[in-house]
């Protein structure tokens, strides 16, 4: 079945059958407060939607993505959009392999804000080490749209970003986005020497409870 975004159970059996190399991909979500970063992150990790409170600091999620030849363990850093956390946000996105600049298509100022984030990112950006996506979220609010798809696409083209519109509410284009990111990361960074580090199963359990060892006991608690 080639590449997939497995649900929990499926993933276990797949991976058990064919243990492929698992690489860690650090992904950060940036953008204004209330554009749906956390909702996207929860979609990515659990494929659920729940309206969330403003994020405090940063929330961390994981998600396994299988491509044909490699498995990625996405470590998703969902940053808080509130201004009080801006000065510490670099702590969370530093060294990220993928960055999502998220805006709300029904709020123009969030689109403007995303461009400010882009400038900020470009200061630290090392070409070839990060793939940046511009993500117009809340595509379900098409009737209140303030930023056209074309506008988003042309900004992305201009600045060399990838672009997609999603709806965390309906789940529309969310898994497509994650798969697309995985492919891009694989193409752009995966090939490089030392681009991605391998994910090691924690060995702690093995030492303490040899009889109860379950290699997937951990990841199924943090993600699907």
């Amino acid at each position, binding site marked *: 079945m080639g590449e997939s975004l497995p649900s929990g159970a499926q993933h276990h059996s797949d991976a058990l059958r064919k243990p492929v190399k698992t690489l860690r991909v650090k992904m950060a979500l940036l953008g204004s*407060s209330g554009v749906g970063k*956390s909702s996207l*992150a*929860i979609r990515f*990790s659990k494929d659920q939607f*729940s309206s*969330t*409170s*403003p*994020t*405090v*600091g*940063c*929330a*961390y*999620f994981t998600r396994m993505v299988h491509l044909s030849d490699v498995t990625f363990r996405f470590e998703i850093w*969902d940053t*808080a*959009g*509130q*201004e*009080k*956390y*801006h*000065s*510490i946000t670099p*702590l*969370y996105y530093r060294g990220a392999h993928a960055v999502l600049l998220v805006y709300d298509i029904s709020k123009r100022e969030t689109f403007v804000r995303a461009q400010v984030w882009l400038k900020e990112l470009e200061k630290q950006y090392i070409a070839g080490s990060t793939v940046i996506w511009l993500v117009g979220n809340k595509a379900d609010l098409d009737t209140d749209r303030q930023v056209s798809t074309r506008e988003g696409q042309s900004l992305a083209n201009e600045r060399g970003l990838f672009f997609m519109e999603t709806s965390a509410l309906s789940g529309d284009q969310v898994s497509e986005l994650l798969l697309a990111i995985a492919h891009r990361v694989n193409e752009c960074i995966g090939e490089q020497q030392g681009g991605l580090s391998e994910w090691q199963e*924690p060995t*702690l*359990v093995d030492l*303490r*409870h040899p009889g109860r060892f379950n290699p997937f*006991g*951990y990841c199924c*608690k*943090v993600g699907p």
Partner: protein
Amino acid sequence: MERANHQEGEAQGVRICDPPSESNPPADTLATSLSLLGNHMFPDPVERLGSTTVSRDDPANSSDVTAEEPSVDAEPPSNQLMKLETEDTETSESQPVVSAQPADRGTEDAAADNDQNDSGEFVVAMLAKAKLEEQGIGVKGRSSPLLEAGTQESPTFTSHRDEDVTADSWRQHRKHVFVLSEAGKPIYSRYGSEEALSSTMGVMMALVSFVQSSDNIIRSVYSEEHTVVFLQKGPLVLVCVSSSRQSEQQLRGELMYVYYQIISMLTQASISRIFEHKKNYDLRRLLAGSEKILDGLLNLVDSDPSFLLAAVHCLPLASSLRDSLSQILQKAITPNLVFSILIAKNQLLTIVQEKTVIEDTRLEPADVHLLLNLIGASSAFQAGEIWTPICLPLFNPDCYFYAYISYLDPPDCTVCLLLLSTDKEAFYAVAECKRKIEEAMETQNSLSLIAKAQSYSVSQVGVSDLRHFMYKPFDVPDNYRQLTQFTSPEMEAPYGSEEEKMRLLDLYRYMHSRIHSTSRPLKLIYHVAERETLLAWVTSKFELYTCFSPLVTKACAITAITKLLRWIKKEEDRLFIRYPPKYSTTPNPSKSSRGGKSDQQDSTDNGFLSLL
């Protein structure tokens, strides 16, 4: 502050203190002009503008006071020496009327007098412009809060941001809290949006600066229905407008909590830095998204006695289970980890502390309250693992810790793990500690054991007539540096409803204010209220508040307390975290101890200068 100094018959007044010296504030001109302001700000149903004499017979209050026993003649239940102060009915703390501090007219000079009048007029003119008659805070007449308080409002966790601030319902809130900057910019209001209240807050700032201009500090304004308490902390001014009849001291304590919660998010150092650079900075930019946390705090302050007692309530747990949980936390460590805290149902299960850090300083209950509120007030922690900077203001107001917060039982989200590190890069290492903890708890089946833990019923004490109590033991030499804790049973019938709970808490607050009165502290109060009898007792070893059925006799109550103390002694291993365990994670002592160099560095790194 002295009760005896209060001039009878002055209905309105302002309490002012002069911190550097006890020199007296200018006499009645100031008091009078401010009481005029008071009237403008808090229009009363009865027009009393300018009148300084009003009958202060409050039937509810006086009946309440006369019901109180002037002395307790029974023997104290233990051999502890108990100093009993009798109370006279004339000096009830619950009297709503407090006047200005008496001034020595002799020191007043004519020039200052003129100044006062001028600025007084200016402020009055400003008030007129601000049309405060429409926006002020007023409440229709109410009787004694001890009988009625809390019936209007139960603590809910809904946002009141959209409220119409000109509506009567807005004025009738029991307790308003405002935060503003020294430039008079609104920062936070408990009810209603800050924008709509900017003129009201402007007036508050005018009051503050008016008093400040004569090298004084405004502390409180009393009107018949309201107590207005001011607290200035650095560039922030906090104001509480309360009809709850709590003591000024208690209200100021609550404002301190609000201040600390703001500090816990921004640090004191960055707040001062921001306002040093830009006096009229709009701090709401930085607090955006955190209003819920402040709202939650204020609801908790109203409904949870932990804040009043400045002590932490831990979930009763068999000591073997608590010990095993502590051991789990003790084993899952990584360098620079400072505190490991396990919380269930918003109460403390156990806390493990870094050895050298805790030798340096103790963890204050207020810091734990702020952490518990942060976790309880936001559902943000229910998704993913959180890594966030957080400041413990009483530990060190200028530095951040990094907190790892994660629920251990999704999707129920009742058991929460909180790991505090001084190293902002330590996320992965700390997250690994959580995996170890999770694994060990699974092995020991801890989660299902925790789920069974619950608060206890007062009936377990086996003392009839005893309806509720709060017991707070003090530090004794062998457990010095231990977190101050208290224990209290579930509030059960007749205190099952929110209204009744609040009424009992108000009674406790009243008892507490009498015990801790700055002018006349008491050791023991036996208070016959309308629907219950309360006994509060403070010794060198504990502070105790008890509530009995109304028909209890004094002798019965004393016997009951003896039994209660015996029961607590027997159960203390279950009711308290007896010996908070420690671990050692400091590879380099300077790294995690308070005010260490690396900490200071952190706070600079994370300052908000870049935003200006």
